């Protein structure tokens, strides 16, 4: 028995199945891939469902035999959703509303993070505590007075209503970005900044010429996350921008109403009534720009998050 177990073929088989210290075995790999594929499918299920439904023709929708493979590619839903969403306008509005506050917010967060990481001053723990508080306080505890003030200043519906807080480091989830920069500057060596100081450079100059280039990955990560979160934010945008600028998610949340304005239910024929395929086309058009951005920039999502050490320790 022992001899059979020690036979080279058996040993190789055992190595193949159970792996060695250097490599995973086949059983391990099988379980791993099975789990990953199962979880991956569950994860992607809503997206697949959305896409498949969005290209179904009205006939396919009614046909119970058609589940995952539509009989034809029906682009009509997208044409309608494109019109209902007023796509070009809302897309542009969404891009502006997310890019401009994100640029400002990222820059201000880096200033504050740098100040906290590099200078000794009285009250730093209080500032850090208040920073955490801004992250915890729900928006509905501060939003009404802001809205009333904006109304008095005539800023309601104006993108400035979102830009101003971002400029002062109080934008959407600003605290996270300040903490990212704080962590990041703490982990960077001080040597370069000190030698620049010995050469007589001013603090502001040191910040721009030495600290900013060294923290570039943190800037990129913060900017990307900021754009995504601003894009997806609806609570604040609805309150501050309603009646003025309309972003894509705002228009999506009014989809039914907007559809019936364009295609009045009593007037259009049965095939042009609102159905789930059109709704799913609208939803898909809504996330499409973010999907494109994600696939172009995805390297940054993962790798630089690992490099910038966003672990909050």
């Amino acid at each position, binding site marked *: 028995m022992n001899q059979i177990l020690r036979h080279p073929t058996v040993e190789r088989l055992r190595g193949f199945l159970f792996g060695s210290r250097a490599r995973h075995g086949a059983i391990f*790999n099988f379980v*791993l*891939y099975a*789990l990953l594929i199962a979880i*991956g499918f*569950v*994860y992607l*299920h*809503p*997206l697949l*469902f*959305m896409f498949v439904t969005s290209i179904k023709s009205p006939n396919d929708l009614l046909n119970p035999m058609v589940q995952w493979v539509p009989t034809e590619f029906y682009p009509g839903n997208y044409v309608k959703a494109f019109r209902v969403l007023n796509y070009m306008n809302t897309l542009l509005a969404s891009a502006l509303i997310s890019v401009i506050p994100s640029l400002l917010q990222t820059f*201000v967060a880096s*200033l*504050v993070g740098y*100040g*906290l990481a590099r*200078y000794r*001053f*009285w009250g730093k723990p209080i*500032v850090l505590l*208040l920073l955490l508080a*801004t992250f*915890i*306080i*729900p*928006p*509905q*505890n501060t939003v*009404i*007075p802001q809205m*009333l003030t904006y109304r008095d200043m005539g800023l309601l519906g104006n993108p400035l209503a979102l830009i*101003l*807080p971002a400029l*002062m*480091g109080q934008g959407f989830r600003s605290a996270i970005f*300040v903490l990212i920069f704080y962590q990041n500057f703490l982990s960077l060596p001080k040597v370069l900044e000190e030698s620049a100081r010995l050469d007589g450079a001013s*603090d502001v100059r040191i910040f721009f010429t030495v600290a900013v280039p060294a923290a570039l990955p943190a800037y990129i990560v913060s900017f990307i996350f900021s754009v995504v979160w601003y894009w*997806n*934010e*609806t*609570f604040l945008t609805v309150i501050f921008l309603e009646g003025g600028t309309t972003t894509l998610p705002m228009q999506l*949340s009014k*989809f039914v109403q907007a559809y019936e304005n364009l295609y009045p239910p009593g007037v259009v024929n049965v095939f042009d009534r609102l159905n789930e395929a059109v*709704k*799913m086309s*609208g*939803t898909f058009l*809504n*996330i499409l720009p973010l*999907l494109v*951005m*994600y696939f172009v920039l*995805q390297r940054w999502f993962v790798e630089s*998050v*690992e490099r910038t*050490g*966003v*672990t*909050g320790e």
Partner: protein
Amino acid sequence: MMSRSLFRREVSLRSREALHGYGFILIWVVGFALFTFLPLVETFRYSVNQVTVTATSINLDFVEWANYTRALFTDPNFVELLVGYTIETLVSVPIVLIFAMLIAMFLNLKFRFKGLFRTIFFLPIVITSGPVIKELTAQGAASAPGIANIPAVIEFLEQLPRALRSPVEYLLTSFILILWFSGVQILIYLASLQKVDRSVYEAAAIDGASGWEIFWKVTLPSLSTATVVNAIYTIITLSHFSENKVIQYIYARTYDVHGGIGYASALAFIYFGVMVVLLGLVYFFLMNWARRGSR
């Protein structure tokens, strides 16, 4: 003489450093006062008043704690919504944490097509927004495929005692949504897994520890800080999510003719209080666990 001038120079250097530091954070401090602190105080003032808004002015009528007592004792919906929110949060947090930890450990291994799976698991970070989730839930795409419709499951739910039923039902109908909220958490776990020194694992393996033992004695303790951060992050994201029922209720009350802004402000403060209590509970529970683990 000499030492005194040195001392003075030291002090002036220090205060100069402090001044420069304040210079960097000044804009944030002003912003905090204008956009967070003052509105917060103002909202609290609304919450103890009957507020009427006209086209030109805002009239306040002091009512003491009437808005709060109305919310807690006469409002037929609010307390129920709060209880639902608490249960949903307490059910979701452990699932998100365990799931994120599992996926992060998978992604920390070496295997083929890792990039593909990584792309899939971080996708929800990008697309999770209120209206998108709402559309998907309305189409029934948010539950694990088909589970909630299996007759056996429905029967099983009917057999459960009332207290258990709503959390289980929530779990079944929003399973994918809960998982979709774990994107950032996976990132945080992954980042702290990669910080663990490889040699620790090697030493443990040489000492004859099994994979199971290594997980409990090495991996898990090294993830304790990340777990606390993730738990707090999860609670806050769930509580601030715009499709959250409590938030929508508060938002709807803001435009009520009767009560309106004053009442909604009181609701917002009660909700904030419950959220802080939840955060505190989870924080102390996890801190306790982390301390015991490191001993």
